[in-house]
């Protein structure tokens, strides 16, 4: 009897969670932690190859989604051997200018390092940090800031 009740409660919680998560996807949350997970600002290097990854505040570590994006970029770069890229590191406006320049550089290098572990020569990748000088979204909202904390891989023409 007691077991049954527990089981029922577990089911209850499970369903409630599912129902709530369905609810939240319906509202379209675009950040996890404070890393942007949406794709509003994202452009594509090629079909299915996103050009950018996003970061948490003050962080330069890559999320699993970012790593997946970068693996696709690496595959794309391996296929296009003559293509060189520049990785641009950016920060949001909520920090001091000079520190953000360093932070952007660190983010760009996190991407470069990851691409290199997938066999892309470091010579093909240059990095540049723009700090907070080139936001993609000019608003002053947590969403805009999350979109601006990014590293963008740009083809060199």
């Amino acid at each position, binding site marked *: 009897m007691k077991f049954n009740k527990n089981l029922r409660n577990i089911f209850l919680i499970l369903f409630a969670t599912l129902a709530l998560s369905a609810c939240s996807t319906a509202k379209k949350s675009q950040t996890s932690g404070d890393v942007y997970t949406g794709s509003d600002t994202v452009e594509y290097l090629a079909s299915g190859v996103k050009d950018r990854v996003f970061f948490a505040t*003050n962080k*330069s570590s890559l999320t699993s989604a970012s790593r997946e994006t970068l693996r696709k970029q690496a595959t794309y770069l391996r296929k296009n051997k003559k293509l060189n890229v520049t990785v641009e590191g950016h920060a949001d*406006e*909520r*920090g*001091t*200018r*000079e*520190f953000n*320049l*360093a*932070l952007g*550089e*660190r*983010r*760009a*290098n*996190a991407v470069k*390092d990851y691409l290199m572990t997938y066999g892309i020569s470091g010579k093909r990748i240059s990095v*540049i*940090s*723009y700090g907070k*000088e*080139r*936001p*993609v*979204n*000019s*608003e*002053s*909202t947590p969403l*805009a800031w999350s979109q601006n904390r990014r590293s963008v891989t740009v083809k060199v023409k």
Partner: protein
Amino acid sequence: MKKLIFLLFIYLNSFSLSNALIKVDITRGNLDPLPIAVSPLHVEKSSENLEKLDTKKLGVNISAIIEKNFKSTGLFNPLKKEAFVQKPDIAHLKPRFEDWRLIKAQALVTGKLSVKNNKLKVEFRLWDLTASKEMIALSFTTTPSNWRRVAHIISDKIYERLTGEAGYFDTRIIYVAESGPKNQRVKKLAIMDQDGAKTKYLTLGNELVLTPRFNPSNQMVTYLSYFRNLPRVYLLDIETGKQEVVGNFPGMTFAPRFSPDGKKIIMSFAKDGNSDIFTMDLETRVVERITEHSSIDTSPSYSPDGKYICFNSDRSGLQQIYVMKSDGTNVKRITFGNGIYGTPVWSPRGDLIAFTKVRKGRFYIGVMRSDGSGERLLTENFYQEAPSWSPNGRVLVFYRETKSGAQGKGFSAKLWSIDITGYNERKIKTETDASDPSWSSLLSK
């Protein structure tokens, strides 16, 4: 309204029995601006009708600038000219003190202007009206086009005589003039007088430029330029316009400042995601590494004696301020408060460090002693940073972005100044939006 500062403790007056003299301790006063009358400069008869030069207007303009300078300090209250009781020429010879006291002035500035052989001569006197005596009298000769500087130098002399510390009026501010939307902001180097006059643009805005800083003699500027998309520290000679990259670094260099003797530039160099602090000797071109740490080390600033460097590092996990000897040894963290700290700048007096603090989404400009104690936050806003000291260490100039419109899409960036007491916050007028100010030292030392 009197802004009397009330003390917690008011001493009991002491009474000495030995000489039966009553003693009363006065431990507080008011911080009301000192009422001062600036009489228009008297123009000498012989200089009145000159071709090409309206000397009358010049005299009015000079005294107007002196007045404006005084007012901007918050320490003086220039009185309205309509109330003046004596003609400038007579007042300059010997004021009727009781008349000036009647309009509640405590100090009076009088002056005389003449032009001879195309040389402008300005003479001025400062009078203590309560003591009925002259406090200082000086004269300056220069070319007429320099009249603004004469006004500023006179302001400095009077300020010094009345407050006991050097003035800061005969100075300039270099800054980044901004225009355009935020995601394609156009930035140019600009230079202007401390009061916002005589703005000149030093770059065209083709490339992004950031964080200009004067050298001690105010003839050179070091700054960050994205010329050819390579962010590097540059050196610019304001007089000749000559421009060069500082050092031969294989990556981004940024956050430059001069050493107090002007011989070195200290800056950050970023390599493989790690920023460390380096110096380069401008004469020998020798590059020296100062910090070696896997964290971000940036925003270095020398103490005025050149013996120490304060800088910004996240080696503890978050951005904090550290102080070390100028050779990079003895690194000590000095900030432990809640929030993150950035942009440390050592005051020209050496006793304080100004900084930007970010806490709970708000930005503060503050000062603390060089050991990190005595932190005082002067001003708080949504976004502001980059304090720079006036040469006398009394005033900070910084920049602030104010948002407008839904989600803060509209914004404007302006320069502001504030006294280190936290009083007298005011906006500095600039032709365009402005950021990253750097205050020069006194042009005439």
